[in-house]
């Protein structure tokens, strides 16, 4: 088990990349600490799988180095790196039995048969397939096959890291939760470094200690789930995480006030007038519906009752603004203004968060 360092890493699938657009993975420096569980979150095609394959050694990066501890492994294969990886779609050896599938990586490494049998039993119990060990893998359902793939990924205890590439895509919802819990338990027990790629925020936030959000071939934020929720470093993080995502409104920001189409909004900090396209971002959780003259006047479109709460869909200057209202909230007559909690507002210039010069009467925020 080691710390994995990505040093100046970048990758392009083209032989001679010219501009930055040619890179599937833009320049990246990152340290994966030993024994942590990371989630790599991002929309499809953002470079998550590319990054994962570079770490596991299936892909050699165009630029930069990968270090396992102090050892440069950039040009070493997956065997030398001793990494386990589980793929998005089930990969099983059809003609082998379930048990042989699980034993395969161990046999290839020349482990003693007795030790293999014990380890296979243990993993089979974990994935709930003890009674099917003798059965051929061919003809099993997709989620049974994926459980075998997961089992094969976890069967080796001495690996440096386990990488998961959207492993639960084909699994039934209730089984998803169970397997995720198992993965967490495994992580707690053995302390493997785990990197879990997903585009599902719930999966990412429940699995990982640290979430790495990728967008357009770049890591836009690394943080705890709270960091991502409270202070998204990039507008993408804002709207990708949360349901619905963060509200983003074009504004002119000066000092501790933002002006949106002539309406002043109090901010939680002082800002030197940011350059570029300036937006303020506020999570729907911190938006309240009010009457009177204060707040942003909006056109209310509809209210969706999603059970635990209601989602208010409104529009300001033709752009959607959402608010989360408590369950059973009765709309006051004539309510058409939205109030934003000042210390929950973030300011963005050209999609990147601008840190306030100093907070105005707000609780301490975590340094990012």
């Amino acid at each position, binding site marked *: 088990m080691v710390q994995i360092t990505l040093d100046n890493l970048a990758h392009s699938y083209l032989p001679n990349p010219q501009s930055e657009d040619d890179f599937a993975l833009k320049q990246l420096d990152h340290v994966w600490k030993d024994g942590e569980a990371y989630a790599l979150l991002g929309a499809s095609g953002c470079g998550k799988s590319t990054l994962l*394959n570079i770490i596991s050694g299936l892909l050699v990066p165009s630029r930069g180095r990968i270090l396992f501890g102090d050892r440069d492994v950039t040009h070493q294969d997956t*065997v030398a790196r001793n990494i386990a990886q589980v*793929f998005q779609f089930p*990969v099983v050896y059809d003609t082998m039995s379930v048990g042989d599938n699980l034993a395969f990586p161990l046999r*290839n490494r020349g482990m003693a048969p007795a030790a293999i049998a014990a380890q296979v039993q243990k993993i089979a119990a974990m994935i709930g397939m003890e009674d099917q060990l003798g059965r051929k893998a061919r003809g099993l359902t997709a989620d049974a096959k994926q459980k075998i793939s997961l089992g094969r990924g976890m069967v080796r205890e001495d690996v440096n890291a386990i990488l998961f590439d959207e492993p639960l895509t084909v699994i039934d919802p209730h089984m998803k939760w169970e397997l995720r819990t198992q993965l967490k338990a495994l992580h707690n027990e053995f302390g493997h470094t785990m990197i879990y790629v997903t585009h599902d925020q719930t999966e990412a936030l429940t699995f990982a200690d640290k979430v790495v959000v990728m967008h357009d071939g770049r890591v836009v934020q690394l943080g705890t789930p709270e960091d991502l929720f409270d202070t998204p470093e990039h507008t993408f993080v804002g709207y990708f995480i949360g349901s619905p995502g963060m509200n983003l409104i074009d504004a002119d920001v000066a000092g501790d006030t933002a002006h949106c189409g002539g309406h002043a909004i109090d901010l939680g900090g002082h800002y030197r007038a940011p350059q570029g396209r300036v937006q303020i971002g506020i999570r729907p959780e911190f938006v309240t519906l009010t009457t009177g003259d204060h707040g942003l006047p909006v056109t209310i479109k509809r209210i969706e009752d999603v059970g635990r709460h209601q989602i208010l869909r409104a529009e300001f200057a033709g752009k959607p603004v959402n608010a989360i209202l408590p369950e059973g909230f009765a709309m006051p007559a004539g309510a058409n203004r939205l109030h934003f909690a000042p210390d929950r507002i973030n300011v963005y210039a050209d999609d990147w968060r601008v840190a306030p010069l100093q907070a105005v009467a707000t609780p301490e925020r975590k340094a990012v």
Partner: protein
Amino acid sequence: MDKVQNNKAWFLVLPVLVLVAFSAVIPLMTVVNYSVQDTFGNNVFFWEGLGWFEQVLTDSRAHSALGRQLAFSGIILAIQIPLGIAIAVCMPKKGFWASVCLVLMALPLLIPWNVVGTIWQIMGRGDIGLVGYSLSAIGIDWNYARDPLHAWITVVVMDVWHWTSLVALLAYAGLQSIPQAYYQAAKIDQASRWSVFRYIELPKMQGVLLIAILLRFMDSFMIYTEPFVVTGGGPGSATSFLSIDLVKMALGQFDLGPAAAFSLMYFLVILLVSWVFYTIMTNLDKAEGR
């Protein structure tokens, strides 16, 4: 609402029925007709019952032709299937050289059968043929017209040259359809090259390989033109496979009755083998849960 029944649509099937009748049913029925009758010419026929079938079934000449046929099909399958797989595994997966390989592989398949026969008939000749001359030059008295073994080798090599490409192309298509993740997973699992072949490539190629075996079996079982051009079934009857023997019987000796009975049984064997393969393939598909 009641469904409107319009049986006039059946008339649209008529052209196909007519075509199939003329191309298959009527010729086949003619053969059936010959197989149960005897004639002394002048278009006068006598009922013979199953006599011809009995005669063919107990005929040692037919038995030996069948033996030669099975040996030939067995040999070429034993060579072409492994060789085709080996070629497919070694071919480049993409890029310029993959296209070059594909075109080269397809070439023998495009050559008409009698031309293939002619090519090898000349190639094997000791006086002007490349192969025959070279073999004679290194001291082997090569003569496929005199030596049954030489005749067999020539016919087998010719068939391998002509048809291995088909197996290779089918296997190649099967290989290309294996998702990259399988190879990646195998790398992660530290599988050897042999394990990759044994546990990933071979099982994934199973479907196309069955088709390849079926096609090669049927084609080789019905082979006529090429050995006819090269050896004419000789020396003696060393390379008289079923169809060559059949043609000798039907057109050479004009034994219409036995030849017709022979053809029908020949046809039934091929039908039976095809049915067996079809059953295996559908069962495999079921096992896959497709």
